[in-house]
């Protein structure tokens, strides 16, 4: 179409000067700094030492939340489409078991598959990731094809995957893992995996068609469909990716613990959702960024680490964590309300 003829040169048109706004993560980042400073202060008052100037503590802190972070990157994408994924914690447990069972060393006397020991590291890792991918794919198909709410579909997967991980070894842990497998869990490798995943999907959401479609579906699924987006296929893709990341998290969990147990990853899905929401992802869909989720994840880590540092009882930790999640959602609702008033 050569629509140049549409231009009436005599008209002054007010358009499009790129305006750079402050990224929404700035606020949440300031919250993170604030929390850290409060701990720093309380640390000097009550414990007599610095909270921040302790590299070991910070390393442990970020190691602890890396697994949550990997899941949260997937969950963020699901929430942006307007869905939810409750199954990721259970998928972590299931994939930890499955991958560990293919990572056992021949020196271990009670290997699950005695003939399949000492396999190269990529086999157990691949098994874990693929199992997660499959679980997510099933979630996506259920949601896209049967139109049941994501809450229910992933709730089903949550219970089923947990069941599978218990059934797999009748509740026995899987140990004696090879060193080349547990390598992913040593040192700061979990953090590297987390950040790598975060960067990849930050780029995917911001700069690829996959990302644009994800936001469009969350903003208005009808409009997205009429605009030619194959909504069902895209939904399956997003849930499959979330499942795959949960699988990867399962691998890292097993490698880090050097063993796998059926109870691994319990409640991780809630921490991941919390990280996303604290990081500014809207449960109404259509809004959210990986950078926010990364900061949200670190906030969760700092909170936990800080409580431990101040020797606060673990029970209180959960109570406060619950309140923080609610506060984050309240903040989200408030933001939406403010927008609706315009």
């Amino acid at each position, binding site marked *: *179409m*050569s*629509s140049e*003829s*549409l*231009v009436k040169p005599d*008209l002054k*048109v*007010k*358009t*499009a*000067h*790129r*305006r750079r*706004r402050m990224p929404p993560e700035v606020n949440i980042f300031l919250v993170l700094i604030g929390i850290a400073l409060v701990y720093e202060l309380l640390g000097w008052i009550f414990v007599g030492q610095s909270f921040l100037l302790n590299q070991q503590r910070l390393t442990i802190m970020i190691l602890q939340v890396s697994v949550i972070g990997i899941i949260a990157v997937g969950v963020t994408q699901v929430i942006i489409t307007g869905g939810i994924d409750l199954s990721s914690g259970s998928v972590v447990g299931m994939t930890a078991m499955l991958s560990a069972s293919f990572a056992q060393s021949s020196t271990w006397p009670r290997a699950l598959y005695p003939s399949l020991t000492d396999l190269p590291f990529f086999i157990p890792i691949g098994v874990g990731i693929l199992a997660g991918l499959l679980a997510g794919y099933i979630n996506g198909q259920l949601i896209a094809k049967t139109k049941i709410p994501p809450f229910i579909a992933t709730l089903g997967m949550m219970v089923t995957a947990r069941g599978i991980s218990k059934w797999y070894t009748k509740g026995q842990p899987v140990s004696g893992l090879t060193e080349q497998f547990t390598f992913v869990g040593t040192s700061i490798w979990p953090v590297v995996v987390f950040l790598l995943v975060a960067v990849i999907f930050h780029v995917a959401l911001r*700069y*690829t*068609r*996959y990302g*644009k*479609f994800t*936001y*469009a579906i969350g*903003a*208005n699924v*009808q*409009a*997205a*469909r*009429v*605009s*030619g*987006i*194959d909504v069902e296929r895209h939904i399956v893709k997003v849930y499959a990716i979330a499942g795959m990341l949960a699988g990867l998290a399962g691998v890292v969990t097993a490698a880090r613990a050097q063993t796998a147990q059926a109870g691994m990853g319990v409640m991780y899905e809630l921490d991941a959702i919390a990280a996303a929401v604290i990081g500014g992802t*809207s449960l*109404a869909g*259509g*809004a959210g960024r990986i950078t926010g989720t990364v900061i949200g994840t670190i906030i969760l880590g700092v909170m936990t680490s800080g409580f431990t540092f101040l020797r606060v009882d673990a029970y209180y930790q959960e109570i406060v964590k619950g309140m923080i999640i609610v506060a984050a959602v309240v903040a989200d609702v408030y933001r939406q309300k403010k*927008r609706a008033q*315009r």
Partner: protein
Amino acid sequence: MAVSPATMAAIRKSGAIPNAEFLLMAEGIRKEFPGVVALDDVSFRLKRGSVHALMGENGAGKSTLMKILAGIYKPDQGRVQLKGVDIRLDSPLDALENGIAMIHQELNLMAYMTVAENIWIRREPLNRFGLIDHGEMSRRTEELFQRLNIAIDPETPVKELSVANRQMVEIAKAVSYESDVLIMDEPTSALTEREVSHLFQIIRSLRDQGIGIVYITHKMNELFEIADEFSVFRDGKYIGTRSSKDVTRDDIIRMMVGREITQMFPKEDVPLGEIVLSVKGLTLGSIFRDVSFEVRAGEILGVAGLVGSGRSNVAETLFGVTPATSGTISIDGKEVVIDNPTTAIRHRMAFLTEDRKDTGCLLILDVLENMQIAVLQDKFVSNGFVHETDVAAACEDMCRKLRVKTPSLQEKIENLSGGNQQKVLIGRWLLTNPRILILDEPTRGIDVGAKAEIHRLVTEMAKQGVAVIMISSEMPEILGMSDRIMVMHEGRVTGFLTREEATQVKVMELASH
């Protein structure tokens, strides 16, 4: 000093208020939103027993003023008088209890509750056990409906009602509050001609009962038909109030846009090309059947019919939203199967849907994200990565061509006026360079200026050889823009009219067969 709403309601109940000449008066109203002055020193007066129309382009401030009068917004400056007494409205409920009821453009009924429950919500009649007396509620509703000459079963769930009937329920609800002032925000935008005339009957009878009615509209003919007076707003400023008997159409347009609009419908005769789209025996279950027509390159085929005649369903089926149960669609003489919008777009079709908010805009996203979404299907992408700079440049270009008024491409589309939102959505489709353009109510609820621009654009598209199918409920638009008119009634095509032979009467005859 302003009287509090509760006091005012009490005074009103006692009947002590003198019959002031003006039911409602607003003076020096100013309202700012972040970044915009929505109203600047605006005044407004409503006479007892009159219909007062508010005119102005989108974003002129009409709706904001009415929301202030209905207690939804609080003014930054200025005062509001109800029957000569200063009042302060803190909530829509305050306004309602003071006798000011507003019927919103987006209807606010609870879909899963019955008509009666919706009307009497919060005021349900109770039986002696303190439980809701459904029989009494139903009886009261029927009484109310009789008075208004409305024929709806009070026990129907609202979700089963047509848009027109929902509107009637809203009006009945407002009347049930014994309101003195009724504010209607574009009540006819979703109604057919017949429904409109019924609505006008009701409005007239309410007016004769002494109620003051504020009527926001974009439609000029409605103004002459129903309004006693009208006020014009432009860019948040009050321009003037006139009696509708003393003015002509052109006077009003001049007041509204501050410039002359020479021609309402810039339709140009275009030499017609080959048949691009040919539809034979298209059927969708019991919704519509045996629809056959052809559209040539450069032709604008108008589709007329009452709401519910299946016009929009045909459009949705053509575009693959709801695939046909039988019949064939051919493009360039070749039969094609279109079972989803993706396929339709691949055949270079484009579809501007009827409901901007529900199926058009990605409201929480920005102008760029809204505009690029369809074209990203097959352009501006390699290896999955979007060419950000190129697509932004194309969108910026399109915004300029369509004269979209937006501070930037990064502005959220929900902050744009209806007309500008519509232009963004049209831009979304023009970027895909379509050969077949389906427009469903392209100018619904948008102001005169934007309307004319959209008409000019559609003409331009036709000139470039695009086959256009345009569904519209507005007779002047259908008559003014179409080369040929297809009329539908209850899921069937009842006839075709050429541009020369088409008149309002002929179209209506076919539409109500």
